[in-house]
């Protein structure tokens, strides 16, 4: 039980995917302009990441390892993730049009989010069991959503702030991201002892 709690804290704060491992930077920069879209993206990513980690684990353990095909992991995981995203989109479209509209374009975009593939591959690397894999994916996604929402809220304020001319636009955004990353690196102090 303690191990699972540690996995969650580790992925959400200490080894945050975006700010410490630098995975999934594209949506982090691209979709964080508004708080609402950031939340939508975070929600969709959480759902897909958890599900794809589970599916990737199953594929790995019941298909790739028994056949000795570990070297095909990357391509097999990409395939599984793409299928999961597509399937999720269809099901959501049918069952909940409201949610489908809220997630909108972000759902298919997640296919190309490297954090999703990264989580699946790191699961294998760290030799997680089934529950740990699912929790690892879920924690990574919660960390991603947390950082997205924080960053989007900051960007909304920066837009109306009086920024020096040379720092306006992408420059101040990148600097903010860098400072946030520094702050999150500080969480590695949690692990000591």
């Amino acid at each position, binding site marked *: 039980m303690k191990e699972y709690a540690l996995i969650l804290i580790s992925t959400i704060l200490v080894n945050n995917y975006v700010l410490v491992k630098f995975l999934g930077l594209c949506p982090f920069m691209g979709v964080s302009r508004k708080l609402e879209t950031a939340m939508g993206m975070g929600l969709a990513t959480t759902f897909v990441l958890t599900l794809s980690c589970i599916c990737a684990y199953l594929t790995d353990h019941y*298909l790739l390892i028994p*056949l*000795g095909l570990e070297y*095909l992991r990357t*391509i*097999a995981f990409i*395939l*599984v993730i793409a299928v999961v995203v597509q*399937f999720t989109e269809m*099901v959501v479209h049918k069952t909940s049009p409201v949610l489908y509209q809220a997630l909108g374009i972000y759902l298919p975009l997640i296919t190309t989010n490297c954090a999703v593939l990264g989580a699946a591959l790191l699961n294998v690397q760290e030799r997680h069991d089934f529950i740990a894999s699912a929790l690892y994916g879920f924690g990574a996604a919660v960390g991603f959503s947390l950082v997205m929402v924080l960053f989007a809220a900051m960007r909304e304020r920066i837009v109306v702030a009086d920024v020096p001319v040379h720092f306006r636009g992408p420059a101040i955004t990148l600097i903010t991201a860098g400072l946030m990353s520094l702050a999150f690196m500080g969480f590695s102090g949690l692990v000591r002892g």
Partner: protein
Amino acid sequence: MMIAIFALGALAGASGLLLGFAAIRFKVEGDPIVEKIEAVLPQTQCGQCGYAGCKPYAEAIAAGEAEINLCPPGGANGVAALADLLGREIPPLNGGTGAEKPKMVAVIDEQSCIGCTLCIQACPVDAILGAAKHMHTVIARECTGCELCVAPCPVDCIHMTPIAETITTWKWAYPGAAVRAAA
């Protein structure tokens, strides 16, 4: 090697089957009434109804947000056809959005055209050919007669000419709708 190919092939095949099944099982029907309404509208894309084109207007009608009598190019026949499709009373054409006119096409007076491209940008159906500082002309077969190009022209060289009824342009009027409108 062969095992790898078969394993990946099987995985891909299974995924394909799953997605194919999902596509059928979770099929989402588009709103069919929108397409039926759009088929009745004249496709001039003129925007006189207050919507961005025929499809948005069809969607607004289907959603109950718009009246069915806002389309001047469709004329009384069009309103009657819409009322027939939707099972409503036939309202008179709403004069506020424009009067019914005979079918027309835009013609550019090529002597006066200065090649400003403003009419090209205004045309919703890309029926105007030309380039900056070169003479423009209207492809008569593509022109829907929406008049959107008339106002932007800075030298007023575009005018609308009614299409003369020839053997190739003459069409039967919609008989059912016309009869019902008269009744």
